[in-house]
């Protein structure tokens, strides 16, 4: 019985997170932390582990986190419930938008006009993601705190990997998946 209640709480909470978080997986972290804490589902150590695991495993981070929290609460069924719940709102919204707006008014003035505004704005939003990931990947804050030297805080091997991957993908048209795998092997061998 308590499992069923847990599953209902899991579903409603993750449905809410899926419906109201704009800006992808990282934007969801504070919401998920709140849910996990208020229900007493994880210790803060477990929560930190979960974020680390969600980031180093393949797939969208938000889906990874939902699956992980769900598993902790109610095993495999919990995983499925939380993952479905977090994906549901956007899925339903997309069906509605495609069926009732874009298919009928694809050439309408307003749909075209809204896209004229959205296209460049979304480029700006994703550019922020580049900067965020670059700061984490290529810059060591702890070293900066110790030495206050920007030059020493830059991860030069990381910068090399970034530039090499960029050239490989952009110029030589190497598939991004291959690039990521090679970077992983390179990192395991030479990073410290």
């Amino acid at each position, binding site marked *: 019985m308590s499992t069923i209640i847990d599953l209902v709480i899991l579903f409603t909470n993750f449905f809410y997170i899926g419906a*109201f*978080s*704009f*800006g*992808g*997986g*990282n*934007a969801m972290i504070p919401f998920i932390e709140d849910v996990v804490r208020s229900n007493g589902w994880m210790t803060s150590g477990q929560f930190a*582990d979960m974020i680390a*695991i969600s980031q*180093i*495993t*393949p*797939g969208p981070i*938000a*889906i990874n986190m939902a*699956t*992980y929290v769900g*598993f902790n609460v109610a095993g495999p069924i919990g*995983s499925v419930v939380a*993952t479905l719940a977090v*994906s549901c709102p*956007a*899925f339903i*919204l*997309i069906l509605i938008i495609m069926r009732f707006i874009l298919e009928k008014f694809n050439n309408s*003035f307003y749909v075209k006009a*809204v*896209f*004229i*505004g*959205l296209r*460049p*704005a*979304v*480029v*700006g*939003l*994703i*550019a922020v*993601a*580049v900067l965020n*990931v670059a700061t984490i*990947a*290529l810059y060591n804050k702890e070293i900066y705190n110790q030495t206050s030297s920007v030059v020493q805080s830059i991860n030069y091997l*990381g*910068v090399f*990997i*970034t*530039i090499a*991957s960029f050239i490989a993908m952009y110029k030589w048209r190497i*598939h*991004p*998946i291959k*690039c*990521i795998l090679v970077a*992983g092997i390179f*990192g*395991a061998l030479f990073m*410290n």
Partner: protein
Amino acid sequence: MKKDSIYLELFTSFFKIGSMAIGGGYVMLPMIQREVVEIKKWCSEDEVYDFYTLGQSLPGMISVNTATLIGYQMKGLPGAIAATAGMIMPSLVIIMFIAAFFTHIQENPVIQRAFKGIRAAVVATIAMAVINMAKKSIVNMFGILLATASFICFFFLRISPFYIVIGAGIMGIIYAAIERRREHEHNN
């Protein structure tokens, strides 16, 4: 037999992307583009960028949203389900496995080093996605201004993307209305 195979193809294509994309949803953008535009030829480059635009403007995850949109475009509701399921399935399987047996995998030093290398490549992957998208999505001065404004609002002012997206939509309508009036006057 032939009728069912498109659903299977949608599922496997997104399963492949979902199972290889380490480093979050944005890493998938160039992968989706490669797979869907160049290899499968399911939609045009312009269409994919509009799906990214819409996928980022809606709540949820851009990668899952894009999969749903492409699936729907291909084969309606069943297509959307097949593509979305393919995108989600790898996470579900991998994370359940880790949560059950390897809750300390992130402490393994080899994995930590490998992940550092991957994260550096992820920077390049997302940068490429932004550059490719900018080339198609930013076509005039208005676009440059709007992209810059959206960057500043999100990065420096920490405004929620929800408001940025709504603001950008309104700006688009104002811009298009002004353009239309100008054209109108020009024709008269």
